[in-house]
């Protein structure tokens, strides 16, 4: 798999990270280096090997259906650049 400059620009845009056009070739090279490193795994035969999801055998922890959290409007809004009447206020987004 090879990442070209166009793909690098697209990934940056999807991630909402601003990358100047002159920085794109280097970024594409870095992506390729990382992917090349990971692709070494392709050399292994993993036929009939279950994907490992955890290093320790563990069951997904569950919670009961009880309200234990919330009621902290001020804390939730504390980091908001702009909040009004209990809402986050953001530049208008409308379809």
């Amino acid at each position, binding site marked *: 798999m090879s990442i070209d400059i166009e793909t690098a620009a*697209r990934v940056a845009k*999807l991630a*909402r990270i601003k990358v100047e056009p002159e920085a794109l070739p280097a970024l594409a090279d870095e992506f390729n280096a990382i992917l090349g490193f990971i692709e070494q795994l392709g050399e292994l035969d993993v036929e009939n090997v279950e994907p490992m*999801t*955890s290093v320790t055998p*563990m*069951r*997904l*922890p*569950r*919670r*009961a*259906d*009880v*309200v*234990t*959290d*919330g*009621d*902290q*409007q001020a804390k*939730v*809004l504390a980091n908001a650049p*702009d909040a*009004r*009447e*209990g*809402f*986050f*206020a*953001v*530049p*208008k*987004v*409308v*379809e």
Partner: protein
Amino acid sequence: MLDLTYDTPKPKVISGAKQDWELVIGLEVHAQVASNAKLFSGASTRFGAEPNSNVAFVDAGMPGMLPVINEFCVEQAVRTGLGLKAVINLKSAFDRKNYFYPDLPQGYQISQLYHPIVGEGEVLVEMGDGTARTVRIERIHMEQDAGKSIHDMDPAMSFVDLNRTGVCLMEIVSRPDIRGPEEAAAYVSKLRQIMRYLGTCDGNMQNGNLRADVNVSICQPGAYERYQDSQDFSHLGTRCEIKNMNSLRFIQAAIEHEARRQIAIVEAGGTVDQETRLYDPDKGETRSMRSKEEAHDYRYFPDPDLLPLEIEQAWIDDIAARLPELPDAKKARFMADFGLSDYDASVLTADTANAAYFESVAAEAGDGKLAANWVINELFGRLKKDERGIAESPVSPAQLAAIVRLIKKGDISGKIAKDLFEITYTEGGDPEQIVEARGMKQVTDTGAIEAAVDEIIAANPAQVEKARQNPKLAGWFVGQVMKATGGKANPKAVNEIVARKLAL
């Protein structure tokens, strides 16, 4: 139990300028799980709370917060799957669907793309005209809801409320088996009915607790059958997805409009672009959601914060054993046990409260058919007039059963029964005592009726003469007798006696 078999409904055909077209429709229904707390946090799901008050730091996407799954939500997804006769997957997993939007603070939605909890199932969708469509369910997965953006509070700003963020949704995905706008609405109604029976989703569309995305394409007659035989999608047209509708009326209107839009494009020699569209109920049209197109690459990957969800067969069996009787079974039982028509049984099983009310009336009255008539025609009609639900009925099942018993015994006529019902409805009381106290009993004593007939014949010699020439006029005498007895005379007896006395 009755085995209900139905004919398949005819697909809707829309005539274009050049030829006829058929519709192919698949739905993604988002049903909010009726839980107290959210899918991965302990914040409340209560509707209508102060903005941003039902928000845990997990929901707000704060760094370092970890999701912990609400087991009740998992159970409701399993229940819903069982209710749709679907395969339950013992192992499912959560993935991240990545996109940026102000009402999604995590920057991704936790969903189940690759390994949903529920696999293939099916729903029988009755159309009310003796036909029904079996719609195949492809899958049901659990996912987080997003927050709510309000755009009309300020000219330059959107206001964001995260109370809904992280609430558990079940996304129910159908196969493209639906063939018209009415079928689509009937399908959503049926899902809502089943989930309300199960108690897994309250089905409140107005509050957004049940919403649908609709995929619509058009094809030439015959093409759909080729798709069904081969399961090869190339026989079908390019589909467009209309997002997020929360009313059955809008769903139908949007499908109708979207099909006509596609027909116009194809007949003009163009091609339909696969895209996401929004329905505008004010303008009655759909339009493209350009922003969605740009963000269409969601870069799904397994959520590293969540282990796969493994459930045990014994747990599923236990849930299955506790399932309530579902609408199809209840309807079939009502038809078999009480001899009700398909229509009456459908009305009475529309929701569990109606069905339970009817069943107690039928049991106490000892006549299911008569009980059904009274529940549907009198009680439902009267409640509707007052905009009341069955839970607020002033007439209890025991009271209505007493009225039905009085009719059945012949103690009161149908007409008097309506008066008695109205008295019971507005004033309350024991119907049997009301009948006694107010002298509403039907007069079956032929002596009394004969006396009344004699009196009227004697007082109206001219009418007697006319009736002898034209026997149809005997009805006038019947009317007079009923009037004289305050409607309490047994109409059958009156008819006979009048005919005999007039020597007709």
